[in-house]
């Protein structure tokens, strides 16, 4: 059995990548492999925006990722710099801005530095980017 690091760099609405990554992760877990974690970078960070509101008949990826990560206990890490550039702020960012309630990056997503990606790559047998 192998361990995977999943990297998502594509925007949820501008690419199928975020959905493909979800299906790959699901299939890997079902086959008995483990997921070291998912790292969201570039436009991929847009998936972590908790304000996303799809119409009722549209595919909503945010709750799907939350559910999968909580069920199988793997981290959803979001690059803090890439997220801030795209208007995605964690509670810590909000506190620093003196507007402690104004954040849209919440658990199970975590705001991290790029160093966390390096750690994940080193702990995983394989990385796959979507």
């Amino acid at each position: 059995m192998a361990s995977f690091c999943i990297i998502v760099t594509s925007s949820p609405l501008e690419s199928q990548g975020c959905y493909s990554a979800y299906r790959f992760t699901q299939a890997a877990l079902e086959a008995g492999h483990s997921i070291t974690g998912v790292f969201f970078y570039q436009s991929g960070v847009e998936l972590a925006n908790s304000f996303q509101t799809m119409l009722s008949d549209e595919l909503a990826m945010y709750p799907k990722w939350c559910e999968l990560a909580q069920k199988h206990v793997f981290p959803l890490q979001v690059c803090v710099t890439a997220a801030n550039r795209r208007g995605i702020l964690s509670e810590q960012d909000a506190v620093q801005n003196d507007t402690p309630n104004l954040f849209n990056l919440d658990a199970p997503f975590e705001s991290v530095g790029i160093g966390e990606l390096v750690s994940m790559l080193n702990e995983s047998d394989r990385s796959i980017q979507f």
Partner: protein
Amino acid sequence: MKSLAIINQSGPITNNAGQESVDLVLASASFGQDVSVFFVDDGVFQLLNTQKPEELAHKHFAKSFGAFEFYDVENIFVCKESLQKRGLEKAQLNVSCQLLTQTELNAQLQKSDNIITLS
């Protein structure tokens, strides 16, 4: 420590891929990762030494390429075919680098444990 190849595929101004590639290169290198940087397809336009992104109030992030050597990032590979197709020559490039044929490019990529593309 595993080795990491970072492949640039986009020009410098159209999107944020170039800046976020530099962020990734410098952070990975400072965490001791063995990093190689590749410029292929439109990514080679990031290397053009005549660019003046200030003209459009954009940050000249390509100036950070000069910092790569201080982070021990010495493997900077450029796709020869991509340069030729775009009418560019080595003398027009802003960083010291190795030009690779398509076969050599594949051989270098085979050496890296992980590969991330930025486009």
